[in-house]
């Protein structure tokens, strides 16, 4: 069964839907949608750690669409006392979804938008690992990293890792609601808008 997915015959419907978004001709796109997202994870190791929650918000025409919003919390199969510390919101289990369901919803939300996050590589890898567990391919979306954009604006030569907090300070953005994935996604979206305008993207 699993091999059928890989050769593309028996792919699940949601994945097919996701892929059809990328079949369109890019030139026809007038309004480019960006999705800024952030996630809480049980740790920084993409191999062993898992996603705890995802928050995401859409940007169209240089404006954050407040209604174009996505948030999901994921049930943990194995309890890891270490991970609890990271997640300040302890949700009731019935508000949480299993990882597979969360990924399906996330793909439905992002469609073919350009993904934006702060230090995006880890986040992307976490999602790709989750997709791998579903025996699916990797994310197809183009992506942008606010950290990289910030470096470019600062004219830094070598890659330096700057935290979202530091970027906010440098750009004078209020760091409100920085404790949840959705709050972080919103803050990152402001950072992105600001950098986008400063860099003229």
């Amino acid at each position, binding site marked *: 069964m699993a091999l059928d997915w890989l050769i593309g015959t028996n792919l699940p419907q949601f994945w097919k839907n996701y892929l059809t978004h990328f079949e369109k001709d890019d030139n026809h796109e007038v309004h480019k949608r960006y999705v800024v997202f952030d996630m809480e994870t049980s740790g920084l190791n993409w191999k062993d750690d898992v996603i705890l929650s995802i928050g995401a918000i859409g940007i169209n025409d240089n*404006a954050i669409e407040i209604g174009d919003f996505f948030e999901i919390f994921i049930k943990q199969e194995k309890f890891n006392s270490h991970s609890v510390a990271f997640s300040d919101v302890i949700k009731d289990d019935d508000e949480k979804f299993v990882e597979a369901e969360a990924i399906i919803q996330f793909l439905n939300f992002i469609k073919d938008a350009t993904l934006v996050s702060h230090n995006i590589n880890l986040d992307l890898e976490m999602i790709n690992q989750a997709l791998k567990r579903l025996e699916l391919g990797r994310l197809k979306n183009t992506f942008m990293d606010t950290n990289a954009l910030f470096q470019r604006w600062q004219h830094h030569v070598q890659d330096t890792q700057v935290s979202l907090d530091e970027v906010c300070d440098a750009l004078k953005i209020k760091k409100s609601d920085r404790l949840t994935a959705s709050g972080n996604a919103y803050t990152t979206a402001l950072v992105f808008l600001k950098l986008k305008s400063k860099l003229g993207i």
Partner: protein
Amino acid sequence: MKNPVAENVAKFLKHFPPFSSMTFEELFSIANLSKIIYLEKNQILFKGGEETHENFYVVKSGAVGLSLTSDAEETLVDKCDEGDILGLRPFFAKNHYLMTAKAREDSIICSVPIAVFEPYITENKEVLKFLLQSFASHTRNPYDKEHSGKLISENMIFAEHTTDIQYFQPIKYTKNPVTANLDDVVMYIAKTMSTSSIGSVIIQKDQLPIGIVTDRDLRSKIATGLFPITITADKIMTAPVITVPENISVAEAQMLMLKYNVGHLCVTKDGTDKSQVTGIISEHDVVAAQANTPGMLLKQTRRAFDAKELKVVRDRMTELIQNSIDKNIPVSHITNIVAEINIAITRRAIELAIQEMGAPAPARFVWLNIGSQGRKEQLLLTDQDNALIFEDIDSNEYETVKSYFLVLADKVVRMLNNVGYEMSPDDVMANNPKWCKSVTDWIKQYNIWINSPEEKTVQLSTLFFDMDFLYGTPEIEQVITDNIEKSIQQNKKFFAYLAADALKNPAPLGFFRQFLVENDGEHKDTFDIKNRALEPLGDAARVLALSHNLVDFTGTYQRFKKLAELEPENEELYTNCADAFNVLMRFRTEEGLISNSDGRYLNLKELSKSDRLKLKNCFQPINEIHDLLKNRFSLTYIN
């Protein structure tokens, strides 16, 4: 579905009227359909004249300025910060924005679709009441001393004052006017004029305006038989044509027509005759735009035949200032108008004095106002400061010519004194032999001031760098300003003295940020706004403007505005100084009107708390500009 971002926006809105009267659920659903936008500093949210947007805006953080544009100059009308609403105009009038909204700093704006908000206006009485109230009282206005609530902007602030404000709004004129070429035959031009029922045709050469044929030309040159009707346009046109920029105000248009004694102004892209014609303003346009205005005062000035009649004009001007202040007309506009009237009065006084002399002037000359009159910053009755420069003549005639001008100047000075302009306390007037001399002597005088500045003379000499040549031969003005420009270049010592002088005024605030008041004398316990606030700004503007060789710019406000253009890195500081200057001028003028004085000494006890704060806010730019002077002109070397 839950949406913490929308919840946060709803919570934010809940703090501010009219949203505070709405339920959280209502605000949440509004927030869900709203957007967040980011504005870079100086980015424009909407422009005056632009079609209204489908959204209105709430400032989430940062600040957005609202300004009116006329006379090609922006006047800041209002500043919106956190929680202020702007762009509500589409609710009231579905046409175009009146003002321009531009971010004064990096700002985050919540953009709410009007269609989403509209149902609540009719459903929620409080919302409706709020909108109507702020609409009717047009409370959101920085010049309004009594009101300082957070209210709506960009509405109909000027709805009730349309007649006054119209005067300062861009004039409506004919766009794409009829034009003709130099070699067109007058008869055909006249035919075109009568078929399209217009009073003038602009004559172009290489797409540029070089003259104008008007009804008046046809009447006086063709109908009288002076020229045949088959002659070409170049023989009878009036040239050069007076050109003005787009966006000129009614007031300005009228002033220029009176100044040049013409009935038509040609509108061009950049306001000079070196750019494309875009329209024509006729006298009729001016009359149509306003009925009862300060322009009348100018006319009256021209017809006055003695000091008494000029005094009537001067007294009515005080009323005009009072009215303008009451009606919150921007100070920079008021000062422009007042300066024009003052100039007209002085000109008329000179003309009358020449008539009285019984003999024409034996040489060409210019009359210049200096000091605050030269900067065109005197709103109320102030002292006279003036000087006279006559052309170089044979040395054996020198004494006769000089004595003629001294007598003439004496007549002018006395007449102006009768009109109500006090004599200069330091005797800096054109009837003083020291300040009435030939071009060569004046150049020597300026060179002494520039090349060997002394502490004693600097203060006096600064008066002469704020000059307005208001009567006489333009060539003399050119010679003098050219010489100044040449001499001050690279003259570090001169600028150091000027800058040091600019730092001499006493500080406005003490160590505990309290106002420093006069210790003794007639004005004990009052605040000297001239010495402690206005003069430091004026002095700083002067030295900085001269260091950029801006000899022609003499107004403090105009100097700062120009400096902001030239030094983008200090734009904010210069703009703040310009704004502070206008606010201070307003304080001084209001005080002067109340106490019937020159408004120099403010009685702090009579100011409201918010006014005292507003006054204090003007001092920060003064401190900053002082630091800039100290650094730029290395003031540690002298003193």
